[in-house]
């Protein structure tokens, strides 16, 4: 698989991400409460594929370690926006974008 064939897809994704990252319409929901963090959690897919195709023992355990870290991070980034929030926000206005 030639990665160069995916370059147009990357440009398309960058354009989509740039236009979709509009200012947040809800001022009570700053960045860390939004679901943006779930996107980088796609790293879990790469870790799973690396673990699935691992040949040597060192590569396999390293990939399994990556799966463990990425699954912790993915559940954190998906689960935290589902929590109920404290009434006082300590984040400051700069994060309300």
């Amino acid at each position, binding site marked *: 698989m030639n990665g160069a*064939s995916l370059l147009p897809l990357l440009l398309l994704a960058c354009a989509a991400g740039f236009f979709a990252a509009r200012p947040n319409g809800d001022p009570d929901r700053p960045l860390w409460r939004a679901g943006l963090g779930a996107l980088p959690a796609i790293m879990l897919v790469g870790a799973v594929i690396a*673990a699935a195709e691992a040949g040597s023992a060192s590569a396999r355990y390293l990939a399994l370690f990556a*799966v463990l870290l990425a699954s912790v991070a993915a559940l954190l980034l998906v689960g935290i926006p*589902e929590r109920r929030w404290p009434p006082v926000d300590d984040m400051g206005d700069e994060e309300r974008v």
Partner: protein
Amino acid sequence: MSVSFDPAWLGARIDGVDPSPLVAGMWLGAAGLLLCALWLRGYRTGNRIALAGGMLAVGAALYSHDVVNLPEIASALVIGGSIGLMLARRCGGHRLPWLVVVAYALLGLAGMATGTALLLNPFAFGLVDGPGRVTPAHGTLLAGGIAIGGLAALCALLMLVRRTQDYLALVGSGAGWTAAALGLAMGNSAMVLAGGMAGAAGLRLGWRARAIRRAALRALPSGSRFP
């Protein structure tokens, strides 16, 4: 002149075999769900759509690859997911923003570990040339992914030490670019799409947050100090 559809765009061609319509549909469906999640990021629905997209992408990855160690992978997923779920549910409300920073640091470390595992096993992903060495293009992508992942983890650690969250969007952007670089090296369209979207969106949000901070500082009268 007829225009033929190239399945290589889907990034799911494995060992020279074109993807099945099911796998191609799963990749594209996951990418579409993640784009919808980014568009609806201000609402709780967007978070759940992103969860659905991520699960679909993981399912496509497991379905389309010849998995040799499924019990270990499932165990790591269950253990890691349990730890993440317990932390997300039990942690106090005032610590939740810092938990997001920790999650980005873990993603950066996971990117470093994944890139290193790919470098240790380049034959499985076709990253080598004739003599059996990693090609310069793939080596550059993997090194870039490892470096950006390490930088994101380091920045997240510095944010935890300095008790600031001014660069949260930029750290998330770094995690996204790591996924995009590794996806380009592996030829995985879902990682390229989601990583590119997260990277570009994080850069734009981080740039806007920086502009807002500067405007707020300019609005203060000269010589004023916070108590």
